[in-house]
């Protein structure tokens, strides 16, 4: 009985303050979408790290004609230089760090290049002699990159030594910045949401002051008087959180899995599973935000 009564009170409260309630729903929706997007970006980074880190290699690029670096001053790499590099890779000093290595000729480089950029028009303008030949070294421990770098960079015929992880780190740092921006926007929006919930509850308490005044006089308990207001805010925030979760799910399902994952089959992407991990957090955050801000507001504006 009491439950039916409280639900009725909540319903009338929501109807009476419809425009405010809608704005609470929208603001929590947007703020929680940003929170969720930040969380999913972090998950995507972790996913990519796991996927790429055991695939990345150290590339030792060899000299071609007219390369600018000091070690390439004598022109393209000679056969003897190439075999010196190869024997260095097989030497006792390097061997423990190297899991395996592979030689990639200019023609193979072109082939890889074509495969990687098959959808792009630059493929047709690139020829094999524009791409350097290289040794692709797979490290036992990718952190030990410096050893390879120090040994091979000064060798004649070596243009540069590149740790592919550096390239990935650049991508990750861009993604990190993006998720930080999302967090920043989320913080501002959450602040708005809290203020808006507080204002809504205040208005609601004001528009129902007759009811609450009578409730007080006939001896209704604090919980019965306050609960409809708190639940009003919580329900609005919850709807916002559900919308945010739904939006994130749709983005992952149709944009990431439905498009990106098909276009870039070599990369790991987050799936809807990750959204189901994030969604309960968003719902909880919405409930806590609305609950706390409405309780604090009621303490000030609703005498019991």
């Amino acid at each position, binding site marked *: *009985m009491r439950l039916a*009564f409280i639900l009725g009170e909540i319903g009338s409260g929501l109807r009476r303050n419809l425009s405010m309630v809608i704005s609470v729903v929208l603001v929590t929706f947007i703020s929680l979408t940003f929170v969720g997007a930040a969380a999913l970006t972090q998950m995507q980074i972790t996913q990519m790290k796991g996927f790429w880190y055991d695939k990345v290699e150290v590339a030792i690029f060899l000299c071609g004609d007219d390369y600018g670096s000091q070690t390439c001053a004598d022109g393209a790499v000679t056969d003897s230089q190439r075999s010196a590099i190869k024997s260095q890779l097989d030497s006792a000093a390097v061997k423990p760090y190297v899991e395996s290595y592979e030689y990639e000729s200019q023609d193979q480089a072109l082939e890889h290049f074509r495969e990687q950029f098959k959808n792009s028009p630059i493929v047709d303008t690139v020829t094999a002699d524009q791409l350097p030949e290289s040794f692709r070294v797979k490290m036992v421990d990718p952190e030990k990159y410096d050893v390879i770098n120090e040994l091979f960079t000064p060798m004649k015929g070596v243009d540069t030594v590149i740790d592919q992880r550096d390239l990935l780190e650049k991508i990750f740092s861009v993604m990190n910045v993006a998720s930080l921006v999302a967090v920043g926007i989320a913080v501002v929006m959450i602040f708005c949401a809290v203020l808006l919930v507080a204002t809504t509850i205040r208005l609601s308490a004001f528009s129902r002051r007759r009811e609450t005044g009578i409730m007080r006089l*006939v*001896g209704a308990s604090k919980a019965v008087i306050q609960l409809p207001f708190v639940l009003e805010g919580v329900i609005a925030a919850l709807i916002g959180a559900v919308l945010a979760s739904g939006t994130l799910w749709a983005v992952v399902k149709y944009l990431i899995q439905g498009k990106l994952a098909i276009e870039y089959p070599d990369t790991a992407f987050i799936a809807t599973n990750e959204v189901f991990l994030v969604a309960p957090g968003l719902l909880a955050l919405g409930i806590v935000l609305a609950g706390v801000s409405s309780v604090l507001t009621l303490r000030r504006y609703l005498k019991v």
Partner: protein
Amino acid sequence: MIRFEHVTKVYDQKSRPALDDIDVEINRGDFAFLVGASGSGKSTFIRLVLREDQASRGSVHVAGQNVAGIPNWRVPRMRRGIGVVFQDFRLLPNKDVFSNVAFAMQVIGKGRASIRSTVPEVLKTVGLEDKKRRMPHELSGGEQQRVAIARAIVNQPGILLADEPTGNLDPATSVGIMNILDKINQNGTTVVMATHDTDIVNSMRRRVIELDEGKLVRDEQAGEYTAMIPIVNRDGSRELRTADPRDQAIAPFDTEEDEA
């Protein structure tokens, strides 16, 4: 039922106290009028009984309990033992008569069955059994006040406080209200009614407690509202004189008589 022990209420340090050293006891089953000029402290008295406010000095006892000693979370339960009616009715405009009365039971968690049986009974007590589906704006002032009274007594409180319940009503309608309050009192409820209405006080002949600028100036059984007494002087001229305890026909109320 209600006992004030040397109660002083100061709202604002700069002005005089709203109540000044009030010492009075209202017993179970009493019907007491609280009279006095505007600003004399009648509403303040009622607020203190309800623990809407607390006494600055002295203590207020309601149903044998010192209200200052009741923790905040227990105040609602204490208020369930008190019904209140105001001059401005305070009905909920979007609920009909029945729902307005039922509201008082719903918010303290009473069940649907007991609401369905109790509300019509109480509406009968106030003579509104035919109008339970009317909205407040479809009722006269007197009828609205009767709904308010029904709401105040629906949870069977031991005390009914009425702050100028006839203040907005014409004399004939007021008589109807007074009859209802009298009936409620006869059923054993202690009634305290603050009023300006001399005719009502005079015709009811019940206990009168008079306040003046926060001080208790008169407390008599079966009193009249004799704040101003018409005097015929020896030379035949007439004037109004402020009541004086010496004018009282009946001895002042003896506060040592009962113990709550």
